[in-house]
């Protein structure tokens, strides 16, 4: 079972590198995608992390929204990656463990 899950996962990881080997320059369209995808995919990942937030029940996604605001605010202000992440996460833990507990 472990091996079949690993095989499926590795198929998704290796396919692009097998389709476009180093020896050949990949088509222009693939190079374009390679340039712009990181940004789009980060957008996808942010939303993906929040996919289980329920807007109309429980805490209405308020802790998540506030914490992301703190992360963004800290980051625009201090421009320190680790500080923004640590501050936002600590704030989120405070919210879900104390305020919205």
């Amino acid at each position, binding site marked *: 079972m472990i091996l079949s899950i690993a095989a499926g996962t590795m198929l998704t990881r290796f396919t692009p590198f097998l389709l476009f080997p*180093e020896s050949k320059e990949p088509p222009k*369209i693939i190079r374009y995608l390679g340039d712009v*995808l990181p940004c789009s995919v980060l957008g*996808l990942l942010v939303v993906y992390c929040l996919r289980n937030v329920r807007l109309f029940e429980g805490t209405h996604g308020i802790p998540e929204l506030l914490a992301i605001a703190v992360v963004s605010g800290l980051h625009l202000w201090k421009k320190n990656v*680790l500080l923004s992440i640590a501050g936002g996460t600590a704030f989120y*833990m405070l919210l879900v463990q104390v305020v919205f507990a």
Partner: protein
Amino acid sequence: MSSTQKKEFKKAFISAFPHTIPVLTGFLVLGMAYGVLMQTKGYGTLWAVLMSAIAFCGSMQFVAVTLLTVAFDPVSAFLLSIMVNARHLFYGIAMLSKYKGLGKIRFFLIYVLCDETFSISSTASIPEGINRKYFYLSISFLDYFYWVFGTFLGGLLGSVIHINTKGLDFVLTALFVVLFLEQLKEKKNRIYGLIGVVCTVLCLIVFGAGNLVIPSMAAILAVLLAGKGKECILQNYRQ
């Protein structure tokens, strides 16, 4: 490894490590959660660690816990892991140029290319004088190590220690948010970021949280390709 190589590796490792600190926190917590979960389902530490070390696929491993407990069905496990992990196809395309010409270690880099490693390695600007190969290797190895080690700790100590870590896994969300903001600093990136967010939100509304990734990928791809035809974006890209 010669002594200059060792020195270069050490330098790259030191410069790479701070990038991985958020992942260290997130992976230790989630890896431990996974180790504990496997224990409660009756699998020992060894099985949990083996799964983490061989498959190394985060969320899919959590999905697989339920698979392990039902009837043995390797074909559907294989297909399900392709679907859950389909986003790696995008990571590969984006890393083609970055992982070019790195020799044998490329195999390892691709093997362990997860969400977090991808988001760091695809966006980090490597400081001058730092060996690119060793930098990527350090990021990949550290992230991989955190996950496997976290699983090991969880399996070992899970039933002994009780710390309230509720909400700590938000560290990975925060990491993605910050890396996303860093990308948005560049004006030409904003449209692509917006495309990513809007497509995924729409797919979340239409398809729900359970089937989010593949429709979102298809939508993003469609919009990006359609947009490439537009002269304005083309010009953006040439600059």
